[in-house]
């Protein structure tokens, strides 16, 4: 079986796969997938939005922050959160614009560009944003120490540290996954050249 004609003959000798899903089942799965994506998108917006809103409410209430350093800190935290939200929305728009029905060469190249952009975002940009966010929080601490009881102060510091640790772990995991995608897409693009 080395002549290509023989290979073709073998290929055409295959029988059809009989136990494939029904079209209605695929439609149901597609609808469920669509609902799940929409739910995930809504959840992300609600989480980001609620955090942002609570920070804004905190800063505008009369019992809020008074010192210049605290105000600078909260502005830094709000700005970073808002910027992160915008970047995620922009990222979704960019990904959606890559039509899966374009030729494979163009599609893989666009996906490569997208993941390269995400790599830049996940690297220096995200790290800088995280540092600014933590620095913003640190600027709030002197005023928290003055205005809160000890246990409440330590609760906030420990809570923030645990949250920061979890978010950092998740971000590193997501970044590694995206970098692995990037490497594989590079291989796919190279194989198309």
């Amino acid at each position, binding site marked *: *079986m*080395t002549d290509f004609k023989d290979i073709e003959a073998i*290929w055409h000798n295959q029988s059809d796969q009989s136990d*494939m899903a029904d079209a209605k089942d695929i439609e149901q799965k597609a609808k469920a997938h669509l609902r799940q994506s929409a739910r995930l998108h809504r959840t992300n917006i609600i989480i980001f939005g609620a955090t942002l809103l609570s920070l804004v409410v905190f800063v505008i209430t009369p019992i809020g922050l008074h010192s210049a350093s605290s105000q600078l800190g909260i502005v830094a935290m709000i700005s970073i959160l808002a910027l992160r939200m915008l970047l995620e929305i922009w990222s979704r728009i960019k990904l959606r614009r890559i039509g899966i029905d374009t030729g494979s*060469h163009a599609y893989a190249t666009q996906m490569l560009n997208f993941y390269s952009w995400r790599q830049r975002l996940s690297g220096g940009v995200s790290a800088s944003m995280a540092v600014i966010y933590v620095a913003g929080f640190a600027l709030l601490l002197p005023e928290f120490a003055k205005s809160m009881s000890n246990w409440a102060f330590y609760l906030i510091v420990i809570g923030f540290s645990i949250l920061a640790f979890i978010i950092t772990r998740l971000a590193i995991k997501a970044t590694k996954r995206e970098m692995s995608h990037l490497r594989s897409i590079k291989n796919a693009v190279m194989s*198309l050249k």
Partner: protein
Amino acid sequence: MNQKASHSFTEIYETHKQRVYRLCLGYMSGDIDLAKDLSQEVFIKVWEALSTFRGDARISTWVYRIAANTCLMYIRKAKTEVKSSLELESINADADTKENESDIRKLYRAIGKLSEAERIIITFVLEEMPYSEISQVVGITENNLRVRIHRIKSKLSDLIKNDRL
């Protein structure tokens, strides 16, 4: 009636499911479970994108573009090793002779050793798709495609020739 309106999802699925499945089976080196999952993923994407089909390409070209791109991205998610002959044993076992089974195993194992793009192209060639359509799906010129097909054919023949079962 425009071309877009004339295509229902069921019609598209029934027309293309076997070809898309064989395409996925070729990509996945003959792994039936992965090929089934992958062809389902392809048709979920087809369903999602159907409202954006503008009718400026043949519906088959449009479906195979989605299939090829889904496969390319699926491979990046779950890079598969070429399956052992035991795992490939069940391919059409009831329909083909023992000799055919062995040849099909060899063929899928050989396809699995090609690069991602080579797997896409050779599967379309084996499916007897016109070169003009393959070039539209893959997004390379027809001349470039002819050269590549020539190379892939001889590479595939060599791989099969050198395969030790």
